[in-house]
């Protein structure tokens, strides 16, 4: 009886072992990477493609996940294999940085232009100060009057 129970436990461990093999870091998932990787033949992300090429790339990703590869490692390997175009979002380095900063720069420039335009428009709406300048003589007389009032 004890032998049989031992054998069952050993078998269960043998089958459960590889599946539950812990990674040194949180395991990434296929669904997470599917939205970040492009199908090279259909030019959509993997999660939107059912092409043969997309399915092979998904199989590759799943194999690497099972081998405890991180998302960054898998993406680097895909870039080495397929080029940077395999990633849905351009990398945050080199010339590709432009793709990130240009839209932000455009937004900032647009906001500045809009602000400047509003400022100019609001100034144009203000009534002009049409009071003639006070000459020295009038100013002196005004000062005298004010002094008397004190």
């Amino acid at each position, binding site marked *: 009886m004890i032998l049989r129970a031992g054998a069952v436990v050993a078998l269960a461990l043998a089958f459960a072992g590889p599946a539950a093999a812990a990674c040194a870091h949180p395991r990434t998932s296929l669904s997470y990477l599917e939205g970040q990787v492009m199908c*090279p*033949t259909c030019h959509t992300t993997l999660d939107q493609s059912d092409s*043969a*090429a997309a*399915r*092979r*790339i998904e199989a*590759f990703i799943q194999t690497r996940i099972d081998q405890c590869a991180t998302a960054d490692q898998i993406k680097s390997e895909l870039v080495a*294999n*397929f*080029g940077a*175009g*395999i990633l849905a979002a351009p990398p945050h380095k080199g010339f590709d940085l432009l793709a990130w900063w240009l839209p932000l720069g455009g937004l900032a420039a647009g906001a500045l*232009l809009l602000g400047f335009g509003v400022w100019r428009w609001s100034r144009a709406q203000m009534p002009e100060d049409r009071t003639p300048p006070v000459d020295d003589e009038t100013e002196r007389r005004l000062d005298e009057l004010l002094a008397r009032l004190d």
Partner: protein
Amino acid sequence: MRTMKLTGQVVALAAVAGLLGLLIWRLTHQSKPPKIGGPAPAFSLKRVDTSGTLDLASLRGKPVVLNFWASWCVPCKGEATMLEQASREYRSQGVVFLGVDFHDVTGDARKFLEHHGVTYPTVQDGSGAVADRYGVSAVPETYFIDRRGRLVGEHILGTVVHAKDAFRRGVEAALAS
């Protein structure tokens, strides 16, 4: 105020000129499929079957059968045996068969070559840039290049198994010049 207005106009003009430049660059750099009789687009790609790279220019002086394929492509499996047999048949006449693995995972490509017993050199076009220069729309596609590096024969869209005559004519055209 006048200076600011002028600066704004210059910036706007520069932006428009930049966008126009980008458009012109894109239009002039669009890949056009090569013409039969014209030079075969040059390339140097990483080999899949072994280490190192292979430059198409290194095959100048030899007729070349250039076959674009992928391990995930079902018709490519169907033609692999025929291509291997043809490569053995024409080897003595100096014809070089060259496989170009297109948009593929390296490990899958190697398994494919092993499974189908492909012995001729194969390079990898992972990004599809070379296939793009050749105007490849889907795999398999086969081109024939003569000794002078010109495209000859007719380029075969789809499996060569269903285009045996065109395939033979292509190899002969490559051998003839």
